C-alpha cells in the first residue's frame, strides 16, 4: 500500500507546474480574465501538445490513456495556476461524459478533436431551479429538436459542441447549430466564464441516457475537488509568504499566534482536502465499491475548505487582502464558483447520507 505519487506521477506533476508557471503566469491570468471568454487559443494548442486535453482518454481516440490519479494531478496544478479557460469544462467534464455515453462513432467525431486540441466542449446541466439532481432536468428533445434554457454553462462561448442533460437523455449539439443563443452570466469567478444557453428547435444528436452519467460526473467532481486543492495550496503559500515578510509592531506578523494558527489551519484544511481528492481519484480508477462516497467526501470537504482557506488567507493579509491588486481574491472567487459547481457541501453530505445512512450495508462492510 503506497499513498504517495510514483515516479511518473511525480514527473507529470512537476512538468504541469512548470508548464503553467511558464505559459500562464498570474500576469497572463489577469490579462485573460479581462477578456470576454478568458480563452487563449495558442495556450490551448500548447496544452494539447502536452497531452493534457486527452490525458485520460484512450489512444484509439487520440488520447494519452493515463489514469484518474494523473488527471487529478493535472487539475490540481491547473487550480494552483488559476488557469483560465475551458480545460475543466472540455476535458474533465465533457470529455468524461463523451467517453462514458458516446458510441465509438460519436467518440471519433467529438472526443478525438478534443484530444487533438482542435475542439472544445462543455456540459449543460442546470436550469432555472439550479438542481444538480439530473432527474430534475425539464428541458426535452422531441423528435431531435431541443427546446429550453440551460444556465451556468461553463465556457459555452468557446465550445464547438455543447452536451445537454435533458429529461429524455443526454444530447449533443454543435455550437453553430440553428436556434442556439449564448448569453454571458456575470459570475464572481472571472477566470471561468459562465453562460445561459437557450435552445429553440435546435437539432440535437442523442448520446445516451442520463443513467450512464454517474461515473463521468464523479470524474468531473473529483477533478473540481483537485482544482480547489491547487487553489488552496497557492493561497496558503501566498499567505505564509506574506506573514513572514509583513511587519507590524516591529515583527513579522507570522510570529503572532492568532496569525500563525490561521496559517496552520489553512495547512490542515489543504492537506485534508488533498488526501480526500487523491483517494477519490484512486477509488474511481480502481472502481472500488466506495468510489462514489469517496468523491462526495472529497467535494464536500474541499467545497467548504476552499472557502475557509480563502477567508483565512484574506484575513491574514489584512488590508492588502481586500485589494484588487492582491491575487488571493482571484482564487477566492474561483473557490466560490467551484464550491457550488457539481453540488455544494450540503448536496454531497446528503448524497453521502443516502449511501451510508440509508443503506447500513455499505457501512457495515467498510467498518
Amino acid at each position, binding site marked *: 500500500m503506497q*499513498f504517495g505519487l*510514483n515516479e511518473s506521477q511525480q514527473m507529470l506533476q512537476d512538468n504541469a507546474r512548470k508548464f503553467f508557471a511558464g505559459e500562464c503566469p498570474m500576469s497572463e491570468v489577469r490579462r485573460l480574465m479581462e477578456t470576454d471568454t478568458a480563452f487563449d487559443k495558442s495556450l490551448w494548442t500548447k496544452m494539447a501538445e502536452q497531452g493534457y486535453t486527452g490525458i485520460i482518454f484512450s489512444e484509439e481516440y487520440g488520447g494519452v490513456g493515463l489514469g484518474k490519479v494523473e488527471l487529478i494531478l493535472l487539475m490540481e496544478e491547473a487550480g494552483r495556476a488559476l488557469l483560465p479557460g475551458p480545460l475543466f469544462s472540455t476535458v474533465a467534464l465533457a470529455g468524461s461524459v463523451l467517453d462514458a455515453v458516446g458510441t465509438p462513432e460519436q467518440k471519433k467525431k467529438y472526443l478525438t478533436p478534443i484530444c487533438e486540441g482542435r475542439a472544445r466542449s462543455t456540459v449543460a446541466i442546470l436550469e432555472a431551479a439550479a438542481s444538480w439532481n439530473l432527474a430534475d432536468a425539464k428541458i426535452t428533445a422531441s423528435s431531435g429538436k431541443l427546446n429550453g434554457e440551460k444556465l451556468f454553462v461553463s465556457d459555452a462561448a468557446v465550445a464547438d459542441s455543447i452536451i445537454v442533460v435533458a429529461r429524455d437523455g443526454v444530447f449533443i449539439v454543435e455550437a453553430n447549430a440553428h436556434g442556439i443563443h449564448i448569453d454571458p452570466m456575470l459570475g464572481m469567478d472571472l477566470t471561468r466564464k459562465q453562460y445561459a444557453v437557450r435552445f429553440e428547435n435546435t437539432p440535437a444528436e442523442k448520446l445516451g441516457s442520463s443513467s450512464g452519467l454517474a461515473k463521468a460526473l464523479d470524474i468531473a467532481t473529483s477533478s473540481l475537488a483537485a482544482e480547489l486543492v491547487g487553489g488552496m495550496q497557492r493561497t496558503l503559500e501566498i499567505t505564509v509568504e506574506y506573514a513572514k515578510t509583513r511587519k507590524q509592531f516591529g515583527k513579522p506578523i507570522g510570529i503572532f499566534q492568532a496569525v*500563525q494558527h490561521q496559517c496552520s489551519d489553512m495547512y490542515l484544511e489543504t492537506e485534508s482536502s488533498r488526501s480526500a481528492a487523491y483517494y477519490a481519484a484512486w477509488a474511481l480508477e480502481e472502481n472500488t465499491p466506495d468510489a462514489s462516497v*469517496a468523491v462526495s467526501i472529497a467535494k464536500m470537504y474541499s467545497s467548504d475548505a476552499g472557502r475557509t482557506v480563502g477567508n483565512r488567507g484574506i484575513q491574514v493579509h489584512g488590508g492588502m487582502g481586500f485589494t484588487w491588486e492582491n491575487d488571493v481574491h482571484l482564487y477566492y472567487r474561483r473557490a466560490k464558483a467551484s464550491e457550488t459547481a457539481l453540488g455544494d457541501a450540503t448536496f454531497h453530505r446528503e448524497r453521502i447520507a443516502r449511501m451510508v445512512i440509508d443503506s447500513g450495508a455499505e457501512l457495515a462492510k467498510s467498518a
Partner: protein
Amino acid sequence: MDLNLTAEELQFRDELRAWLGANVPKDWDEWREKPLEESFPYLRAWQRKLNEGRWAAVSWPKEYGGRGATLMQQAIFWEEMARVEAPPMANSLGLGLIGPTIIAYGTEAQKHRFIPKILSAEEIWCQGFSEPNAGSDLASLQTEARLEGSHYIVNGQKVWTSYGWVGNWCELVVRTDASVAKHKGLTVLLIDMKSPGVEVRPLRQMTGESEFNEIFFRDVRVPAENVLGKVNDGWNVAVSTLMYERGSYGARLHLLFKRSIKRLIELAHKIQKDGHPAAQDPLMRQKLAQCYAEIEIMRLNQMRAFSRITATGVPGPEGSIQKIFWSELNQRVQQIAQELLGPYGQLLNGDSRAVDKGIWSYGYLRTRGNTIEAGTSEVQRNIIGHFVLGLPRSY
C-alpha cells in the same frame, strides 16, 4: 500511488487473522465495562499471549521481539485487532512509546534488561513528563536530579501520569543542569517505581475517574546507569517519545471512531424525532454525513502520512495534523451524539435509562481532554506554523 495491499501485506494480514481467529479471547465483553483496576490482570494475560505469538510489538525490530513491520503493516495490525474487537494491551505506553525510545537511545544492557519485560507485560511503564508548572512548556520542568557518586538523587513532582498507579517503571524527564538553557539541561532517567521516596497519588479528573496520577519524588536514588541516552540530551530523547505518541495513536483511534459513527447511525434509525426516525431528519443527516466524511479523511491523512514517513524514515511534525484532526473531530462526534440523544445524552452509567451504558455522556466529558493531552491544539498549531510552514517561533 497504489492503495491495494501488496503480497507481503496480504500475507501479514492473513497470518495475523489466522492467529487472532484462534487466540482472541471470547469473553472480553464481560470485562470491557469494568474499572481498569479490575480488568488489568486480564489485559496483562492477553498481552502475554500476543507476545507469545510475537504480535505484541509488531513495529519493533525482529531482534527485539517485534516483526519489523512497516507502518502499513502496523495499520493493518490495528485494523485487524479492531475487526475482531480484541482487548487492548496492558502495557500500551511501554509498547507504543517507551520501548521504541529505549530501542533508539538505550545501551545494550538497558535493552537487554527492559525490552523483554515490556513485551511480556511483566513490567508496566508510565511516563513522567508534565509537571504542575510545566505543561505545554515542558522544557521548563523543575524536577531535579543531582549526581552523588554512582547515583542520581531525584526531587520533584510529576502530574498527569497515565498508568502511574500500576507502573513498575517510569520514563522520567529531570533537570540535571540548571545553569544552561532550559532545553539543554534535561536528562531522561529510567526509574524503578518501588524506589524509596516515590509516592503515587490518584488525580481525579472531570469524568470522575482517576486515569492519571500525581507522582512525588523525595530524595529518590537512581543508579547512574539508568540514564537513557546522554546526560543533558534528555530533550531530544523526550521529543522522540512525543513523536511516537503523535504519530501512531491516530491509526488506532480511527477504528474507534468508525465504531462510534456506525453506532450513531444505528441509533439514528431507532430514535424518533417529530414522529420520524432521526435518520430521516435532514439536519441530522447532514451532521452524521459530515462526521462520517471526516472520519474517513482522518484515515486518508494517516495513510498519506505513513507513506511520507516511510519515504523519509522518521515521524515528523506532520503528526501534529493528525493530533489536531482526531482530537477536534472526536469532540464533534460526541456533540452529534448529544444532539441525537437529546436529554438522554446526559445520563450516566448506572442510570437504567442511559443509552449504551452511559458511554455517550462519558465520551462527551472525556473528549474535552483530547485537545489538551499529548500536546494541546495550540501547541500543535505552533508546531505546524514553525516547523512545517517556517513561520517565526511565537514563544
